[in-house]
């Protein structure tokens, strides 16, 4: 199994497997970076409507191509059909949202199910047609790699490359619109067109991902990578980059995994690899991870003890709490016998001073104090600007008055 996986990862597991692994990696990069804006715009769910709206297009394209006497399963034809019907689905969502009182989630639900229903009806009709080529259309639901051709890989590579280029080209207006559409409009960005471009990008990724991961799972490739990337960074451009890398890695490793053992479906394995990365990130990401939050909580506890200890020192009170003593000792603020060092006395004076500053701050900024960290635990310099502190000190009077 491991040997087979290594072969698949290094494109040695046969021609078809190599194409699938390469295609899935490229698709993952395009989907991850393209899906980021959808996530930032808080419209991730619309990708579900787009994906489900592709199905009637696939069916109709097949029927039309057969009726014209051609090969019903020609991939470019099927993709064109799916793109057209996905576009109509997207416009339907837009129209319902802007022209009726229905909210976007309702519009998405309605469009998704109706289009999917039409799609299934078309597929059923095709089953009864006598052309005999219909086998394989179900692959568009959950993806299939069995009959992947070189041309299919080329379609994915070109489409994915275009999608990435599109992201690079439009990242600024799309970021502006995602963060603050009104400001974007006032800065000369055409918000409607940028939104359409964003949706067009999602549509393109969905359509080129249809064959490989299927319409039901392609949504995961659009959403999981940006959500995972968001856990690691606080900067938009890095979220885009990281989402591309995470998506690409999921596609590449997932496809290789499924190629390395019989009967492992490609699309689902890709999604599960992405999900594994998400879980790891959720646990271990530095700033937003669960573990980091636990550590921060512990550090917060230590800060509480440090402040209480220092205030006790400032007031010449005895300290009994073991944790408080340990914290102060470790920082060299008190000696082994709990007597304050010079450093400890200075820190105690500063804590006392800041304590009175916080008291003034809480009066000055009544509304803010409820939400912000005006707790006396955070260094005041990191929460307020210099002029804000100067204003507090002015009200407080000279330092001597504080004690």
């Amino acid at each position, binding site marked *: 199994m491991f040997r087979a996986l290594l072969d698949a990862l290094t494109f040695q597991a046969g021609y078809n497997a190599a194409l699938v692994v390469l295609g899935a990696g490229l698709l993952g990069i395009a989907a991850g970076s393209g899906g980021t804006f959808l996530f*930032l715009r*808080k419209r991730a769910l619309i990708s579900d409507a787009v994906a489900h709206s592709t199905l009637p297009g696939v069916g109709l394209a097949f029927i039309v191509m057969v009726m014209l006497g051609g090969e019903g399963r020609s991939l470019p034809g099927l993709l064109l059909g799916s793109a057209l019907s996905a576009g109509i689905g997207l416009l339907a969502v837009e129209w319902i949202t802007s022209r009726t009182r229905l909210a976007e989630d309702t519009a998405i639900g309605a469009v998704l199910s109706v289009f999917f229903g039409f799609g299934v009806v078309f597929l059923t009709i095709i089953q009864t047609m006598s052309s005999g080529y219909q086998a394989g259309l179900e692959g568009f639901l959950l993806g299939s790699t069995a009959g992947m051709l070189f041309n299919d890989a080329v379609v994915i590579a070109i489409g994915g490359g275009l999608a990435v280029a599109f992201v690079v*080209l*439009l990242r*600024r*207006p799309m*970021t*502006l619109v*995602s*963060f*603050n559409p*009104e*400001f974007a*409009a*006032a*800065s*000369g*960005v055409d918000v409607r067109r940028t939104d359409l471009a964003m949706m067009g990008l999602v549509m393109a990724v969905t359509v080129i991902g249809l064959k490989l991961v299927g319409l039901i799972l392609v949504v995961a490739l659009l959403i999981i990578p940006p959500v995972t990337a*968001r856990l690691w*960074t*606080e*900067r*938009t451009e*890095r*979220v885009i980059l990281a989402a591309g890398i995470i998506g690409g890695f999921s596609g590449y490793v997932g496809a290789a995994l499924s190629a390395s053992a019989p009967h492992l479906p490609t699309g689902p394995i890709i999604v599960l690899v992405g999900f594994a990365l998400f879980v790891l990130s959720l646990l271990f990401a530095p700033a937003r991870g669960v573990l980091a939050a636990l550590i921060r909580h512990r550090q917060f506890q230590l800060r509480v003890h440090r402040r209480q200890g220092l205030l006790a020192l400032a007031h010449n009170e005895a300290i009994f709490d073991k944790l408080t003593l340990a914290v102060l000792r470790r920082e060299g603020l008190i000696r082994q016998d709990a007597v304050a060092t010079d450093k400890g006395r200075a820190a105690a004076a500063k804590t006392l001073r800041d304590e009175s500053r916080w008291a003034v701050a809480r009066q*000055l*900024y009544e*509304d*803010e104090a409820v*939400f*912000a960290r005006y707790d006396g635990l955070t260094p005041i310099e990191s*929460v307020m*600007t*210099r*002029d*804000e502190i100067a*204003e507090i000190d002015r009200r407080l009077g000279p330092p001597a008055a504080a004690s």
Partner: protein
Amino acid sequence: MNSAALELASDRGRRVVLPTPAESPLAVRELTVSYGEKPAIFSIDATVPAESMTAIIGPNGAGKSTLLKAALGIVPRLSGRVLVFGQPLSEAMHRIAYVPQRASVDWDFPTRVIDVVLMGLYRELGLLRPVRRQHRERALACLDRVGMADFAGRQIGQLSGGQQQRVFLARALAQNADLYLLDEPFAGVDAATEKAIIDVLKALKSERRAVVCVHHDLATVAQYFDYVLLINVRKIAEGPVATTFTGENLQKTYGGRLATTHIDQLKLPAA
């Protein structure tokens, strides 16, 4: 059409600078906006004087923010015209900086303070021009003007409300515009921030730029502004604070919603 300006000229014989649409940083004519069948603002004429600080005042739901957005073309106009420095909006958009309401964005967005200010340079940077050191330095200088230079690398979610408002103002400063439109810049900010913001706005005015604020705090109008526009869906009055910000006009604007005692407390200049 220029009835507002004419009214001013006859105002108690004082010398009043007549704003004409051609010179005015922002002139709207018969501006009407409606989200449904009930107009949000109805047939508003207004002419903001050059190098002034104008307050747009009115009760909740009076259409103050809508007026600002319609003047910027962010919400579609049902009818009416907007002239910016005598030109149609489409030709003068680049001379306007806009500060939207603080609550209009998600502050958990993955971006840093300096990145938000750099958004103000979008017109210059366009799609692909790289952000160079000079751009960063300009953004930092704008942050410095609002007292936030030390916060440049912070994630915006860590800011207090007042600091968020300062960042928005810094972004508008980066746009280096001639007309500044601000939507409730003093709403829910602390005293130090209010002072920092008003200092910057007054500096803008002394740099011969025009400032228009949607404003809600009647107590500070006379202190901060020199021109007022009172609206409640329709325009009630416009003119210099000294002559227009009167108890009578406020009563007309707010109807019964403003107690007479409240108006008395405002120490109006010409009540």
